[in-house]
Every structure is written in structure tokens, then in C-alpha cells.
């Protein structure tokens, strides 16, 4: 299991565009991918746009990306990079 904690950078938070970009990348990996927002017991499926959008994540929200599977290291690294780069927005 591999995990990393990252902070949402985008001004508008985790709206549909970042959610789409995140899941498009997440489904490329075999590993299961879970998103755990800090300070809650919620666990969301990182391959589900609907799950991600309903987390209500804003700019500054802290989440842990957790992957389990053959490509877990790459999954965590690439998805973390995506979040920290603000999804290429701004």
C-alpha cells in the first residue's frame, strides 16, 4: 500500500473538470485508489467522478491518496502531482 497526503490547489476546488482529469488518470492504473479527506471518516473511490465531486473539497482541503496494487507507487506519485499542480488550471 502506498499513500501520500496532498493539498487541493485550485481556486474553485474539486469541481467537475479536476474530477474528470483525476479519474481519467486514476482508471489507467490497476491498483484500487482511495481518497481520504483529512479529519473525516469518509473514503471515496478515486475512479468515481461522482464520489469525488460529492466530497465537497475546496481549495486548501487536505486529502490522502491511497493506492493498493501492482502499480501503486506510480499511481500515488502521478495523482499527487496532478493535484499539486492544480490540474493545470490558472
Amino acid at each position, binding site marked *: 500500500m502506498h499513500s501520500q497526503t496532498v493539498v487541493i490547489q485550485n*481556486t*474553485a*476546488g474539486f*469541481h*467537475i*473538470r479536476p474530477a*474528470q482529469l483525476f*479519474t481519467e488518470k486514476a482508471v489507467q492504473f490497476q491498483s484500487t485508489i482511495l481518497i481520504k479527506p483529512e479529519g473525516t471518516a469518509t473514503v471515496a*473511490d478515486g*475512479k*468515481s*467522478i*461522482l*464520489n469525488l*465531486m*460529492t466530497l*465537497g473539497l475546496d*481549495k486548501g482541503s487536505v486529502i490522502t491518496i491511497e493506492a493498493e496494487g501492482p502499480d501503486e507507487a506510480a499511481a500515488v506519485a502521478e495523482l499527487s502531482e496532478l493535484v499539486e499542480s492544480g490540474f493545470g*488550471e*490558472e
Partner: protein
Amino acid sequence: MTTETIEQRLTGLGVSEGIRIGRAFVYKPLKLDDIKESKTDQPDEELARLEQAKAQCALELGELIERAKLTLGEEKAAILKGQISFLNDPAFYPPMQKLIQNEQWSAETAVRRTVNQVAGLFEAMASEYMRERAADIRDVGGRLMTLLVGHQGARLSDITSEVIIVADDLTPSDTVQLDKQFVLGFVTRIGGKTSHTAILANSLGIAAVLGLGSAIEQIQHGEELIINGSTGECVLYPKESTKEDFAAALAAEQKEQESLNAYRELAAVTKDGFSFEIAANIGTPQEAAGLLEKGAEAIGLYRTEFLFMSASQMPSEETQFEAYRQAAEAMQGRPVVIRTLDIGGDKELPYLQLPEELNPFLGYRAIRLCLDQKQLFITQLRAIIRAGAYGNVKIMFPMISGMDEWRQAKALYEEARQQLISEGANVGEAIEIGIMIEIPSAALMADRLAKEVDFFSIGTNDLVQYTVAVDRMNEKVSYLYDYFHPAVLQLIKSVIDASNKHGKWTGMCGSMAGDPLAAPLLVGLGLHEWSMSPSAIQRIKQTVRKLERSACEQLTERLLDLDTPAEIRSELEAFLKLQQ
């Protein structure tokens, strides 16, 4: 079918066009909650049915997306693409399968429960944008259910003759299925002036009566219906005499339209030979398509906000470029004045996260927002400059309050242009850059600004609000809102005079430009370009052609000496009555 029916008159909100007489096409798509829940003892069969319905749903959406791209543009297509991604989402389809497999629910029940649950999550969210996504989820869920159940109810794509569509509401994925040539009108249970249905109806010339409420239940499929999109009237089972009255009114409307149509080819030139450019205000590139036929000689205002408001994310440079290019090409070399983003906290753009302000109209909006968010602004400028290679494009900046903002905005235009040139992009000739005059400080500095800008465009709607300090939407004080206020006229005059002194032109894009009553004044002041809603063009041309500029100039001198809007209006009315 009842043999004896009594005429009924219903009233809704008239939001578009005039009288239409036709057959009602009652559109009642399946509602999720119409389905009764049931268990199954054949879960494998239910799974197979669900799988088949899902596949068909994806196919249908795919076809609609192709159609949407052609008829309604990329933005509407994006909504449908979003629906396909929901269909494939691990939180949408797998839970349905689990309900069938683990709890022996029927496929219909599984769909109903899951869609309600997921949509419910979105409806509970704080953000309005998220709550609106719930409608998309219900839309795709409804489509899936319809396929599953094999619902035969009237489908919009079945319409093959002229009808008036009667529905609770019409969603974007509904309207994208319509063949416009068969749609006479819309009648809906809910909805208002700014709803999707109203905007679509206006841009396509379809009559629409919205917000009829529960009375809509009385309209039967196939029955004759008369509607009036101006007054909001709706007549069911019309008597012969009623039909005759409306038919006569419709004939009169059409006759007037025809005589106005004669002005399409004619110029707005006064009897003593002075001409004025008549242009149109638009919000989407699709509206540019019919403009030349309507007699528009240019686009005096292309409001770019609609592109930003109808998207779920920041429109890319490519998306913007496509829209601006479409408008430029549609006008075949005639001027297209594109106004940069004019938006603020009163309109929610979720991806911009605009601050909540106590006074949004005096706050962070329009050019102020753009100068602060340079990347956003430069992207838009790049898209406009590139579109300039395909037509006669001009740029104007909204809400300029002084020299600094103008110069900064102009500098960013230069920067965007240099970027494109160094990238080897196709940029065409340098573009005319102007500003909106809507803030009194800019109007009072028109003389200095005229030295640097290429043109002015007077936005009377906001100019009146800021000058008279009145909110047009505030019923208690809206009586003060009048563009014939002597102070406003003084400002308009000084702006036009300033532009003339420096060899520049002045246009007007507020609703004053489309008001025939204002025509003698605008002729007298020498306004160069008048930009208005396309439906006002013919009447304005008709009015201008009755006038003599010399008489209008004398009239204007008198009017500028009057003290109140009421006096000015009554002088204008009297003057117009005398013109033939």
C-alpha cells in the same frame, strides 16, 4: 375524446415572440418515481436487461452529442458528455448491479433507488453548481429508465409536423432532439424569463409561454391550442370566434413583420441623406447566423459572458476562438465588436469562485477582474485576435472607469498579440480597440480617452444606473431609471462630441439604441453606430428613414434645455407623430 369542450383561457409568462396556433404535443418523459418497486426471482435476467439498457443509453447519448455539436455548440455537447461519464462511474452503475444481485430488486427498482440516492447527495451540497449537477444525474437516470421500461410515450425526435410542445420543463438534452422547423412554440409548467427554454426560444424565434403551473394538465395531446408568447395567454378548445380573432391578430402581426422586412435591405439613412450604422447585440455565435438577413450591418456587441456561464469549466482558448470565429465569418466582413468578459459576483461562475460582495455592481467584475486575472484575460484576447484573421473583428473593454485601466488593458492586448506573432500564429491586421462608456467617470473624461481609444460604445443600461444612482430592478425606485434623464443626455452628447473632435466614432449598445422614441435625439446628437436586439432593427430603420437630420438637430437643442425626462419624452412623441 370529449365531444363537448368549453373554451379555457390560461395565463403563464410570455417570454418570446407572439401568436401561434397549432396542435399540442404533450411531452411527458418517464419519471423515476412513477415506477413501482418490485423484487425479482431472476436476478441474472434483470442484470442482462440493465446491461442492455445501459449500452443503448450510451449509444443514444453518443448520437445526441454529435447532433448537439452541430445545432447547439460545444458547450451543450459537454453537458451530455458529462452524462456519459456518469453512466460509466463506479458510483452509478455497479451499485445498481449490487442491488439486483444481492437484494433481488428488479432492474427498474435498482435504477430508481441508485439515481435518487446519488442525485440526493448532490442536492444536499452547499454549492449551487453542485446542486445543478443533480439535474444531469436525474436526466441520464431517466433516460436509462425509459430504455429499460420500453416507455413508448411521445418522443421529441418523433415530431414530423408543426406542433406546440407542452411539457413540465425542457432540459438541454430534450431540446437538442428537436427539429426546429417543426416547433411553433413551447408551453411549460415551470420556468422563467432567464430559463434555458426562454433563452433558446428567443434565439430561435419560437413562441414560448412558461410557468403555466398545474393548469397545464388540462392540455391534451393533439388538441388545438392558441398561445401568445408576448402576453402569456393560452387558449384551449378555442371557439370559432376566438380562432377568428387570433387568426386576424396573427395576420396583422405577420403583415407588420412583412412590411418591416422591407427595411432589411435598406439603410438607416435620413431624408436629407445622412446614414447611421445599424448593428445587432448578440450573446452566442449561433445568433450571428441570421443577422444579415434581418438587416444588421454589423454586430455592435458580442457579449462573451454566455460562453463562460454555460460551461462547467473555464472555456479554453480553442473553444473561445471557435465561437468568435463563427461570429466573425457569419458577418462576412462586416464589423464584429467583441466585448471582453463582463461578469461579476451577481452571476455565479463556480470555477472562478468570485467573492461574495455587498455591492457587486460596484465591485470586482468585468475589466477589474480581467486585469487581476491576467491569464484568463490574455487567453480571451488571444482567442479574439486569432478570430480576427477570419473577419472584421474589434475589441471593447467593459466598465472602464479611467485612463489607467484603459492603458493596462490595451497593454495586455499588445502582449497577447506579440505572443501570437512570435508563435507564428495567423493574426491578421491590427484590431480596433475601444471601450464601453457606462461609468460616469469615463464619460466625464471622454475627451482625454478619445485621444487614445479607437471608439466608444455607450452602455446606457449601466450608465443610467450609475449616473442616477438607481437599481433598475428595485421596484421602489425604478421609476427613476430613465435614459431620457437630462444628465444622461448631457453625458451622451459630450461623449459623441469628444469622439468627433478626435476623429473617432461612438456607438451605443444599450436598449436606448433600439427605442424608436430615442431615434430623433440620437440622429440629432450624431451617434454613429446604433446596436440593438435584432428584433428592433427593422423598426429603427423605418423610423430613421422618416427623419431629417437638420430638424432632429434643432429638436435636440431644445430637448437638451428641458428639465425632466417626462418633458423630453412628450416632445419626442409629438415630433415623431409629425414625421411621415
